[in-house]
């Protein structure tokens, strides 16, 4: 994909400014209807999810006290994986978005919730709620477009580092909670210069992250194994596996949000003076859903309704399913593409993009052309191909910044 502004067939060319404002008003009305009807049923929902999650975690950890026995290891690890996924996705992410602040419960509130993840809530909220949700899919502003270690759009400049991006993506997936912590710290950018490294603000945030990591590591790899006595080692591996499963699952679901084919990206300049209606429109076109049943919805933290979530990040997650038909109707009314698909298809689409864009744009085309024209000496030929490809790429680039590398 390239930014919407440079596409030959602009998917919003048929919309007038008044159309977009009317769309905004209709979306505001959907939001108002949900806000007016929030009540007992919704409060009971989140309390139930929290109750189930905590009981599942407690019982899984209790079972893992006997993890020497393979059935206990399996059952406990499975239960703990689900518990961690529920806590991060349906509970933590949504509570931190302020979706449940309206209940005025100090224990279920965006200002107090700390989630079971290496990244401190405060830093996650900044990079996710504030930056990602405001600048969604804007090249050069939304770092979720590749997390600083990959390129996911033709309009992001190519560097040789990206040749290995399928590997970086896989590593990030395995250690995703640490990837998020590093990302929230903007580690790549901040470690690069001495001035940034030694800034008191960065140091304070770094300390906060280390403190969170210490608590998490102690819990999963020291405290619970120690409590298990003779099952020390199996409990440790069980907890590591549960964290890994959580990382792989959440990484996959999150990739499906903005990487599959059909999702639009936007030029940095295009959001200057953006109206409310235009912001809504960018959220609609820059997000993708995952189709599935109830299990899919709850295990993805209702990010199977990524479009609805991006339109209304602070509405209770249990309501996204209810408003999805109305939102889809608006897509139809305004002739827009509602990007969705089953999980395997969306994950495959996202990975295909990561693999394709690890190479420079039009690499395959120019490679075959060159191969056809030039004669012998394959090595020199290959080199010249790469050089020409990168030079060609430089002409098209709109984003001049170096990528934020998490690790160099």
């Amino acid at each position, binding site marked *: 994909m390239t930014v919407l502004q440079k596409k030959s067939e602009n998917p919003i060319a048929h919309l007038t400014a008044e159309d977009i404002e009317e769309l905004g008003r209709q979306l505001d009305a959907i939001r108002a209807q949900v806000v007016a009807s929030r009540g007992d049923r919704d409060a009971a929902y989140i309390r139930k999810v929290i109750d189930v999650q905590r009981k599942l975690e407690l019982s899984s950890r209790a079972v893992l006290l006997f993890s020497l026995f393979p059935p206990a290891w399996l059952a406990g690890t499975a239960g703990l994986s689900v518990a961690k996924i529920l806590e991060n996705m349906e509970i933590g992410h949504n509570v931190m978005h*302020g979706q449940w602040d309206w209940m005025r419960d100090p224990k279920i509130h965006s200002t107090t919730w700390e989630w079971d993840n290496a990244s401190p809530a405060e830093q996650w909220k900044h990079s996710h709620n504030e930056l990602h949700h405001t600048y969604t899919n804007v090249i050069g502003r939304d770092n979720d477009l590749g997390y600083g270690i990959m390129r996911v759009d033709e309009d992001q400049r190519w560097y040789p580092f990206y040749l290995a991006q399928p590997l970086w993506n896989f590593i990030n997936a395995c250690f995703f909670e640490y990837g998020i912590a590093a990302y929230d710290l903007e580690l790549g950018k901040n470690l690069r210069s001495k001035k940034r490294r030694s800034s008191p603000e960065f140091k304070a945030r770094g300390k906060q992250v280390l403190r969170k990591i210490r*608590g998490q590591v102690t819990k999963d790899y020291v405290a619970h194994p120690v*409590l298990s006595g003779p099952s020390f080692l199996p409990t440790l591996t069980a907890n590591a596996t549960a964290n890994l499963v959580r990382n792989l699952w959440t990484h996959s679901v999150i990739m499906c949000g903005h990487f599959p084919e059909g999702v639009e990206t936007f030029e940095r300049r295009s959001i200057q003076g953006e109206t409310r209606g235009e912001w809504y429109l960018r959220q609609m076109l820059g997000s993708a859903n995952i189709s599935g049943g109830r299990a899919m919805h709850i295990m993805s933290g209702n990010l199977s309704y990524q479009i609805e979530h991006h339109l209304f990040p602070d509405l209770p997650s249990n309501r996204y399913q209810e408003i999805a038909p109305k939102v889809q109707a608006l897509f139809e009314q305004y002739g827009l593409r509602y990007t969705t698909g089953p999980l395997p298809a969306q994950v495959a689409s996202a990975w295909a993009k990561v693999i394709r864009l690890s190479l420079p744009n039009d690499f395959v085309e120019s490679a075959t052309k060159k191969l056809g024209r030039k004669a012998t000496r394959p090595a020199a030929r290959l080199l010249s191909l790469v050089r020409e490809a990168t030079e060609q790429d430089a002409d098209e680039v709109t984003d001049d910044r170096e990528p934020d590398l998490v690790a160099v």
Partner: protein
Amino acid sequence: MTTLVHGSSSAGSLRKRLKDRAWQVAGYVTTPLVPSDYLDMLSPLRTGADLRARVVEVHPETRDAVTLVLRPGGSWRGHVPGQYIRIGLDVEGVRQWRAYSLTSPVERTDACIAITVKAIPDGVVSNHVVQRVRPGDLVHLDQATGDFTLPASRPEKVLFVTAGSGITPVMGMLRNHLHELDDVVVVHSAPTRDDVIFGPELRRLAARGQVRLVEQHTDDEGMLDAPALAALVPDLAERETWACGPTGLLDLLEEHWDSRGLADRLHTERFRPTVVVAGEGGTVRFTGNGTVVESDGATPILDAGEAAGVLMPSGCRMGICYGCVLPLREGAVRDLRNGDVTTAAPGDGVRIQTCISAAAGNCDIDL
């Protein structure tokens, strides 16, 4: 031997230190949650938990008032008759806090406490209590507080002037102290005879000669005024007086007692919640550093605060990221996106997004 003097307290503080340490170690296992997050699921009323109570009994007093009998958790510190508690209930999913006087004997064998709630028109919590609360419900609580209580040396002659639900703190005092009082007059106003909360009990006390009860049924007899009261209780100047009821009644009593130079013999408890009337703009006070800003009804509090040099947390500045949330301790604000008004009284626990909220009256922001 000087060490022996401090023996017991150092053992106590050692026990406390060990307990704190054990709690800290338990935290390694539950982080980022704390042990009470799990313990609350199993035993929400245990000592050391946030104060809560289980509703044990709900029984009607009149057509629009019910008594709730509550069993408080182990952290309950008891009360002095006449005091009130704040109770937190989830109504339509939202945690609401209200204050109600305790009416129960302090020495109840079942260690329960009781409050009596009268439904007021459009009252969110009072109507919920009267219509929806059931035995078994869990409610949140604050420790008893207030100084609407009898002094340690009981007065010889006492007058209680009440109206409507204002009888509740007085009932608390009567149920606990009547045997210590020789001369009690109760003047109570209610629309009709059947609307008198605790009517049967009060009339029994009167029949036994323990109190002199004067009922003013305002539907027929009109509202009580100062001359009427003076006629009903000729020796009111000699009586230590406690009054509780609507603002109108308390205002006229205070005026009457003041005009006779008897202000220190009158004790009042005002029940009506401060009614916050939403307007356009107002004075915004930041409670932390005392900065006061005049703000109009179209300026976000975030902008107003920053213009006055207050360091405010912020994020997207468009209402989606919740990076600007601050406690609204008291007052009213309006959502600039859709006009919704949010009001708060101290203790309500209301938090607002300052980037999309404008002052709709005076408001106090905790920062």
